[in-house]
């Protein structure tokens, strides 16, 4: 099963389990099933609850908020994450605020799903990783799914169990990746924290104490995992990899536990470098871990994502870059 199938299966399961679930988005009807096919099969199975919409990102997020306010569980697909800026006001000033401003009288069980990321040559308005601009919005939860464990389960929790608005980040390159179960690999061990949106902790099976803590989310967690393996087997550098599912509100205790052992922190993200997710990780680490922290961020260069392959590759971080950075930190 790949991530696409897991997410699609989860949507089917949610709609089967609760008649309150409504799904809105552009071009989501059969036989198309959405630009990335995550909605495949939904409109034929649940015709009354799958609504294909005009090209109106702000409007459909706002409609989702309204539906959520009135007893439904709304799932809105934004075709490309790059278009989420069009809905920024609806997210920041409506979805995220209503519960709090009402004095806890209303809830907004809304999930906004959207694919981010580059690697496919789609160019500057179809390849971005914009979630960094939506981190730290009071009242908004931002989740990023990975290929680990149970991506469909995370989506299901967000839809059925969470009564607050969720921005649910998928990555285009993740869809085709096989889901990696907790027990599957003999090369590494993978632990999951107890929260609804777990933090994963990956170590190389049977390795010496870790020398470095790496943290990454989403598709970058995949690259980090590859880097951790190669660092161990090719360079004898042993790293802990900590992978959050929830980016905002910020909550990353397992990271601090690992840092207490390693004192070295490397963050990896596909969003552009400055004022990104990694900034909060480092800031949080230096505040709570205290002095004697060695830290570094890897991220996309601070520029738009170019369309041409060689250009795009030079802007987005890769496995080699992680290995290089880790080696520099250890040496």
């Amino acid at each position, binding site marked *: 099963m790949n991530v696409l199938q897991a997410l699609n299966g989860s949507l089917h399961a949610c709609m089967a389990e609760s008649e309150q679930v*409504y799904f809105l988005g552009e071009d989501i009807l059969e036989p198309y099933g959405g630009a990335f096919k995550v909605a495949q099969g939904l409109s034929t199975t649940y015709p*009354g*609850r799958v*609504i294909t*919409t*005009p090209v*109106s990102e*702000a*409007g*459909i*997020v*706002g*409609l*989702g*908020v*309204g*539906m*959520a*306010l*009135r*007893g*439904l569980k*709304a799932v809105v697909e934004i075709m490309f994450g790059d278009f989420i800026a069009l809905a920024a*006001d*609806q997210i920041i*000033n*409506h979805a*995220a*605020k*209503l*519960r*709090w*401003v*009402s*004095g*806890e*009288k*209303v809830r907004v069980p809304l999930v906004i799903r959207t694919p981010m990321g580059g690697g496919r040559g789609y160019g500057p308005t179809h390849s971005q990783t914009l979630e960094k601009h939506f981190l730290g919005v*009071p*009242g*908004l*939860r931002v989740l990023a799914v990975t290929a680990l464990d149970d991506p469909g389960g995370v989506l299901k929790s967000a839809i059925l169990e*969470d009564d*607050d608005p969720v921005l649910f980040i998928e990555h285009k390159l993740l869809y085709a990746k096989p889901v990696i179960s907790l027990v599957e690999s003999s090369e590494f061990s993978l632990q999951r924290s107890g*929260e*609804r*949106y777990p933090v994963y902790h990956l170590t190389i099976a049977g390795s010496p104490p870790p020398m470095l803590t790496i943290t990454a989310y989403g598709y970058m967690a995949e690259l980090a995992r590859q880097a951790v393996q190669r660092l161990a087997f090719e360079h004898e550098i042993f790293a802990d990899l900590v992978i959050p599912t*929830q980016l905002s*509100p*910020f*909550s990353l205790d397992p990271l601090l536990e690992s840092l207490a052992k390693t004192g070295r922190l490397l963050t990896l993200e596909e969003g552009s470098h400055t004022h990104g997710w990694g900034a909060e990780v480092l800031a949080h680490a230096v505040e709570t871990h205290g002095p004697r922290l060695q830290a570094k961020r890897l991220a996309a260069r601070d520029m738009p994502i170019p369309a041409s392959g060689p250009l795009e590759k030079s802007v987005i971080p890769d496995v080699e870059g992680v290995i290089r950075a880790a080696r520099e930190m250890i040496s």
Partner: protein
Amino acid sequence: MTVRPSPDDVELYRQMLRIRRFEEKVLSSFSSGIFYGTTHTYIGQEADAVGVLACREEGDIVVSNHRCHGHFLAYGGSMHALAAELMGRATGVTGGRGGSQHVQWEDFYANGILGGTIPLAVGMALAEKVQHSRRIVFAFMGDGTLGEGVVYESLNMASLWSVPILFVLENNRYAQTTPVQLHLAGEIADRFEAFSIPVAEADTVDVIEIHALANKSAASVRAGEGPRALVLHTYRYGPHSKGDDTRDPEEILRYKKRDPLPLQGDRLDPDLRQRVEKEVEAEVAEAFQRAQDDPLADPASLTSPLDIAP
């Protein structure tokens, strides 16, 4: 919440007067420093909220905007809780969180972002439709709000999916200080009709006329005929918010000659009218006094907007 009986002349007058006196008191008290923030008063437009919301049935939803006091009172919201909200008291509608523009109570929702509430309103109407509730949504907005793009995204979807919503466009001829001819090209009604939403339009402050028109539109909406728009040309007598009124005083005077209050008041028996006026004055005085005696909102009441790690 109870359904108001089919309104009689007295009730319509009383509701308008409650708004008028409340708002007058708000404006006149501002300089005394009892309020936080700012306010946008509804004086002059009372016939809109009262005439329209007299069509409301149990459970209907009202979506309002920055100028929400009149809508809220006509909806049946507590005058004391509204006064307390303006004064930042613990007993305010949202306990002092939202203030004047962000009033949420039962099925009433207001917000200070112009136009931002309109897709929410359409979403709520869609939710009520698919849940077969027979509830309808009344969504108020001003002429200036027609500047916001998301309004059109919402009109399109409301029409496409035939949701039970009545858009109430209050054209008070100004967006803040900007006269409508400087901010709006073409005719207001066309903005709705371009999305196949039928429009009823009136240039009146007669609450009975407005109520009759609204009743017809609301009935169509309730009958499942899809969205309707009501374009009401009106005028506000007070400044946009507290201070600065840049309008021509003569223009204001001209519109004051067609004041909705005396128009309706004159229809009442003079004794009855006097009684209503006394009752309303007492109600307002008591609401403000009680609010002022209430404790200020306590910071300890503030909750986190989200569970961090559920």
